[in-house]
């Protein structure tokens, strides 16, 4: 019984901590409700669809393929990205380029986003800086699996 009563103070202290959180946050909520803007807010919530947090510059979002000056993809179909991809979601089909300096260009470049784990290895592996993950697009959900397969046309956009 003595031992059980020994917890009593700690139990009350725990209650006081939550009570303090409640009261403090309520004060800031009420201040906001009557129109007084304070530095501190009652909640740390960012109400997502309306309010968005700024995406960090190094954030890995949807892939894009970069273009040369003439509009063709910078990719030379070296298959390094497809090789390094841990989830094996990149599929590249090479075709011969008339320019001997370039040699190859991708006839087909498909990323299956339903498999992609957004590790960014493809970006690091690319010797031509042809693929980047800096579009800032993070809402990639689709209603069909087909919508998540991004081909050359979609990636070059």
């Amino acid at each position, binding site marked *: 019984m003595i031992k059980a009563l020994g917890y009593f103070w700690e139990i009350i202290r*725990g*209650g006081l*901590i*939550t009570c303090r959180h*409640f009261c403090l946050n*309520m004060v800031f909520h009420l201040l906001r409700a009557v129109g007084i803007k304070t530095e501190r807010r009652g*909640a*740390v919530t960012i*109400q997502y669809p309306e309010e968005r947090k700024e995406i960090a510059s190094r954030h890995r979002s949807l892939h894009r393929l970069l273009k040369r000056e003439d509009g063709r993809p910078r990719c030379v179909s070296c298959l390094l990205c497809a090789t390094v991809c841990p989830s094996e979601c990149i599929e590249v089909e090479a075709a011969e380029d008339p320019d001997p300096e370039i040699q190859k260009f991708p006839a087909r470049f498909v990323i299956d986003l339903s498999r992609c784990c957004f590790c960014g290895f493809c970006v690091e592996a690319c010797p031509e800086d042809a693929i980047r993950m800096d579009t800032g697009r993070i809402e990639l959900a689709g209603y069909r699996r087909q919508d998540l397969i991004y081909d050359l046309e979609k990636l070059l956009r």
Partner: protein
Amino acid sequence: MEILIIFLKIVLALVWFLTLTLYLTWLERKESAVIQDRIGANRANIGRFRMIGLFQPFADAIKMIFKEDFVPPFANKFLHTLAPFLSFFFVAVTIAAVPFGDRLLIAGKSINLQILDLHAGLLFILAMLSLGIYGIILSGWASRNRFALLGSVRGAAQLVSYEVALGLSLVGLIMVFPSLRLQSIVAFQGQNVFGWIPKWGILLQPLGFIVFFFSALAETKRVPFDLPEGESEIIGFFAEYGGLKWGLFMMTDFMEIIIVSSLATTLFFGGWQVPWLAADGFHWPWGGAWLLPHGVVVLLQLLAFNVKIIFFCWLQILIRWTYPRFRYDQVMDLGWKVLIPLSLLNIVGTGLVMEFLK
């Protein structure tokens, strides 16, 4: 006329407590959110009006109504359906004895703002709250699910360990206010000590209140004592329930909070008494009076009762979002080794003090 008044009282009290129950779910969501530095459910809307999530209980209700009413093929269909209704009925019926206010004089009639002025109202509430366990045991048994049955057995074991303390903690109170009628208990608390401190139950029975409050927390079967349910990891007695029947169990839980709050208010915090408010207005302890019409006094009493109830609901939600669950044996220990000796001590102490002061 008498029947009409009784009918009106029943409807009003039931509707009011059901509204409170609905909005207690909202309060629980919002309060837990504020405690945890969040905002809480605020998306339910009608048109462009969100009203800080005040429509959320209705959205929940609509969702639960339109869910499939599923009874597992191996369950006892009749008892499986009966259990949630039984559970809810025993809680809802306790509203009959809750004193909302003093007598209301209207058109030459004196209406008691309590549905049934039972001479043993306190025992009635305690008995009905204890009977609520039948719904839990029945639901676990009728589900024919071992986990559900274990949950209801845990509920029964918990009941045995707190119900004794709950009853014993109130014995001291009954000794002080020599009545079991809730209206006369409240009326007694209208007196003042030394002419200015309201003579509420908490003042006369502090130890009794502590024991009562712990046992009452166990009665509501929420987190510090949610052995039967164990929502965080173990499977509770309503494992085989869904939709509106599950909703009824939840309603029972929330209504139990309100009933326990109103019981704590009635017994220990003066019920509908406002400090220094008599039947004809305020009589300040420093002399002078502020006379008020009868209607305003009754309104103030109703308001005081509800404010006190809401405060206790708030306190219980705060407790629910602060503490982890007691282990099975810890609840037994708390009940049998701490609360019951304390309540016995309270009875002996109360008796000695009363004899000494006589």
